[in-house]
């Protein structure tokens, strides 16, 4: 087994690198855009600070639609959009576009749910102190919801890794694609097993870090 591995060392490292790029960009998109979108969903919901039926329904529908697409179809469906943004729909960088879109929708929903768990009374106290919407979010809501936000991101990252494994269809590469091309199509089962082991270890590590971090920062 180690022989076969040695033989494919460069390819494996390259595949791992591609996976890191795809998942890394997804995480960035989730935090930079998914977090604000989830917060907006929370704020616009009925009875909340910026109650707005139109905005809420629009974003709610958008998030639901993206999340209900079978991911493979979403990738294909987004090809024209990806080409428009990146210039090509093929390759690792192009693959980050559909991944980021699903990442945003995925994390936004988890963010919304975490924020809804913050006790209404805390928000009321904040408003009674004269806090603005921005201050309520940053000084109260995010502080109270932080362990949920971390756990949600952990779950999301693990999903992103899973989504990234099918990006071979648009030449995105990554270890999922490596396992299929070399392990499955060239009948080198041990390579496939090796990749699965890498993935299992990776997911364990991420879950371990996420669970512990969320516990450490939870003082409730």
């Amino acid at each position: 087994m180690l022989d076969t591995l040695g033989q494919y060392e460069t390819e494996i490292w390259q595949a791992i690198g591609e996976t890191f790029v795809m998942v890394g960009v997804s995480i960035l998109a989730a935090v930079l855009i998914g977090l604000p979108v989830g917060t907006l969903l929370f704020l616009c919901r009925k009875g909340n600070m910026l109650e707005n039926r139109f905005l809420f329904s629009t974003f709610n529908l958008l998030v639901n639609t993206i999340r209900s697409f079978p991911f493979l179809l979403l990738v294909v469906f987004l090809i024209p959009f990806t080409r428009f943004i990146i210039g090509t729909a093929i390759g690792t960088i192009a693959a980050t576009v559909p991944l980021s879109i699903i990442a945003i929708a995925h994390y936004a929903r988890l963010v919304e749910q975490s924020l809804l768990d913050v006790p209404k009374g805390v928000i009321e106290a904040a408003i009674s102190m004269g806090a603005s919407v921005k201050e309520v979010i940053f000084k109260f809501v995010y502080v109270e919801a932080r362990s949920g936000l971390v756990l949600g991101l952990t779950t999301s990252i693990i999903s992103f890794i899973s989504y990234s494994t099918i990006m071979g269809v648009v030449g995105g590469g990554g270890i999922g694609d490596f396992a299929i091309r070399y392990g499955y199509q060239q009948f080198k089962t041990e390579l496939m097993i090796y990749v699965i082991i890498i993935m299992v270890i990776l997911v364990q590590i991420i879950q371990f870090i996420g669970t512990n971090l969320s516990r450490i920062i939870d003082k409730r």
Partner: protein
Amino acid sequence: MLKLDRVSKSFSTFQAVKSVSLTINQGEIHGIIGASGAGKSTLLRLMNLLEVPDEGEVEINGQQLTSMNSKKLRQVRKSLGMIFQHFNLVANKTVYDNVVIPLELANYPRAERRSRVMECLQFVGLDSLMDKYPAQLSGGQKQRVAIARALANKPQVLLCDEPTSALDPSTTADILTVLENINKSLGVTIVIVSHEMEVIRSICNRVTVMADGEIYDTVKCKPTGILNKENSPKYFVEQLTKDVEIDHA
């Protein structure tokens, strides 16, 4: 100094407050009492526009809250403290960090924040617990933190919604003593909502009785003083067996 003029508030079709007018005078401890669901909390929350009235006006020191833009309203809220039955502290912040929040919101000079927080914590007798989190405190201690937080910006008025209803009798007496102190030594006007007659009678100078969203009557009264309730097991047993043949089961 605080005036409600024919304020009404409905939740969908239910009218919780029906055209109520009420004036709170500078320096008084004003009680609001009534049965559950009478509209006491809603009336209190109308005073800082936590509930926006459907009709009527809210005025503080001659400024009309109901016609203010949101920025001005936030400014006014900083001079109105509020405490709640369930304390509503930020559980992920320490005692110190909870009390410093209103100072941050008010852009209080950075260098003076610490001493102001300590001053407020000393006032409620909690300066030694500044690094604890709310989950590590008793109910009475949590309410003291909430009081310190409400005092940080030197409010003119302190609005209290059932501040002792989650506390045992002896802790209730402690908290009432703190509130009375705030009124006497800091000159803060206090509005206190409670369904407990004893709480209201002990410290209020004037009491509004509410029923079905309306004011039934407002009466002047002489505070009876805070009875220092005992908390010892011996006291509980005495109370339980008073007037009864002693029978230790």
